[in-house]
């Protein structure tokens, strides 16, 4: 219990310091519970997610950093490795390839990288994966773009 707390304090302080350094990630700790965090990440450029801001929810287990945080998208996203309904993310470092050397901040970076480089062969969103696997990049792009506009961009007016 105390080890995870101490480590999260460290991360909290590091985040305060790095805020300016990483304009694509805004990590915020819950006011009342250091085991709950949210992040806002910018969709990477030259992807259908460009211009969108996506919200992630982190639930950190008490065994952290020996066990990975539980992360999911709160913002709808059309991506082969993100469950369309639950926002669950299929990413190896959040499962069996986890290492305590990762931090909440670097996990955000990994998720941004996943957004730019989908893995259609291990899909959580089959429609999205099938589009890419069948080579319909344009179809995938327009679907992903549409959902970015609908869910991740500020409404006009």
């Amino acid at each position, binding site marked *: *219990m*105390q*080890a995870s*707390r*101490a*480590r999260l*304090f*460290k*991360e*909290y302080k*590091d985040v305060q*310091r790095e805020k300016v350094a990483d304009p694509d990630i805004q990590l915020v*700790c*819950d*006011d*009342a*519970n*250091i085991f709950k965090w949210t992040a806002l990440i910018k969709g990477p450029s030259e992807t259908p997610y460009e211009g969108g801001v996506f919200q992630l929810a982190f639930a950190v287990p008490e065994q952290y*950093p*020996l*066990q990975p945080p539980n992360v999911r998208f709160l913002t709808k996203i059309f991506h082969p490795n993100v469950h369309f309904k639950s926002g669950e993310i299929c990413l190896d470092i959040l499962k069996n390839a986890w*290492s*305590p*050397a990762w*931090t909440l901040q670097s996990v955000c970076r990994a998720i941004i990288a996943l957004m730019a480089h989908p893995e259609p062969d291990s899909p959580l969103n089959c429609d999205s994966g099938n589009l890419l696997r069948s080579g319909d990049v344009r179809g995938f792009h327009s679907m992903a773009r549409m959902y970015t506009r609908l869910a991740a961009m500020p409404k006009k007016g």
Partner: protein
Amino acid sequence: MQKVFAISINCVSKMEQMQSIEININIGVELLRGNLNIEVFETVGLENHIDYEDEGQSLHEEHQRSRLNELLDMRNSENSSLAPLNIEELNLKSREVDLLVHELTYLHYNFKDQYSNEEYNAAQEKIISAKVNPDFRVKTIPYVLSPSTDEESETCAICLDEIKNGKNIGSLQCGHEYHINCIKRWLRVKDLCPKCKRQCLPF
């Protein structure tokens, strides 16, 4: 951002200890109010911390609050030139209380081994002269020491704390170093170096 070390622990007399607590409280409060734009309280190690391992969350918070009250009482009773502060006025959220107590408790423990006696005495000197100055505000923290260990300091990737020179290091075959207790806990989960993912145990 300027790196500043607050040194104040292990003071010789109780009086001096009170003064340093007072200053630390001020720094902690200013830090929480966001008025302080420097990195204070470089944390060194948590091994001296009270371990709340088997206690519930509420008990922990209660303990933290009473500890903070205790520290604030010390501050208020020792210093009449500053307006008394109480925990309600601070309007701290539970995380901030935690953080503040964490930092303050921390400062009570042996910072001393980090510095030579000369450095330490110089810092002490400055704390005391700061105290004499009635205009003392946290903004002008006078006891600034640039850390000599900076270029050498390495961080344990598991707890993110500094690895102190040669102390309690667990080094793996790949050459990566962690605190021995940290890496032991991880290796029980998985037999891989957290940094390079190489296997560590020879079977």
